[in-house]
């Protein structure tokens, strides 16, 4: 568990990182550097979107799988690492 905390701290300390959220398989944030309502909102929406992206990838090639998703927007960038989930 300490390793997870250390990794989160390291990511959060990178210049430009606004927030870091760890989300479980149900789309619930289990660790976050942001406030609760923001975490729940981001976790829920991005969990669903990630599932959709994975579905799209598998639709095109059933042998393939999603490993990382990056959404660049006008204001910032959201990075989702699926880590086998």
């Amino acid at each position, binding site marked *: 568990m300490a390793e997870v905390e250390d990794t989160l701290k390291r990511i959060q300390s990178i210049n430009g990182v606004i927030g870091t959220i760890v989300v479980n398989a149900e789309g619930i944030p289990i660790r976050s550097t942001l406030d609760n309502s923001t975490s729940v*909102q*981001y976790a829920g*929406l*991005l969990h*669903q*979107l990630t599932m*959709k*992206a994975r579905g*799209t*990838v598998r*639709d*095109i*090639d059933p*042998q*393939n*799988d*999603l*490993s*990382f*998703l*990056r*959404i*660049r*927007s*006008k*204001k*910032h960038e959201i990075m989702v690492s699926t880590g086998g989930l």
Partner: protein
Amino acid sequence: MNEAEKTIKRIQAQKGVEGVIVVNAEGIPIESNLDHQRTLHYTYNFQQLLARTQRVMKDLDPQNEATLLDIQTEKNNILVSTDKDYFMIAMKNSREGP
């Protein structure tokens, strides 16, 4: 060849790039170096994903919107770039090129 076509050709010529599709505001692929079936399949699928992504971004912040979707998979890398009405899909083999 106009500026747009030159840019598309340049991207298609990049090492590792397997396919480039440009889709217009009506959702019709106007440029592609893949076969017709694959072009339509990719266009449909990524248009849906892009639309979903934009809804998520608007939900999070009504003043914001996605400009690029970078999908990294085990086999390759798919980039969906959007601006105003058009969007472009580029498929890159992750083992080659930049």
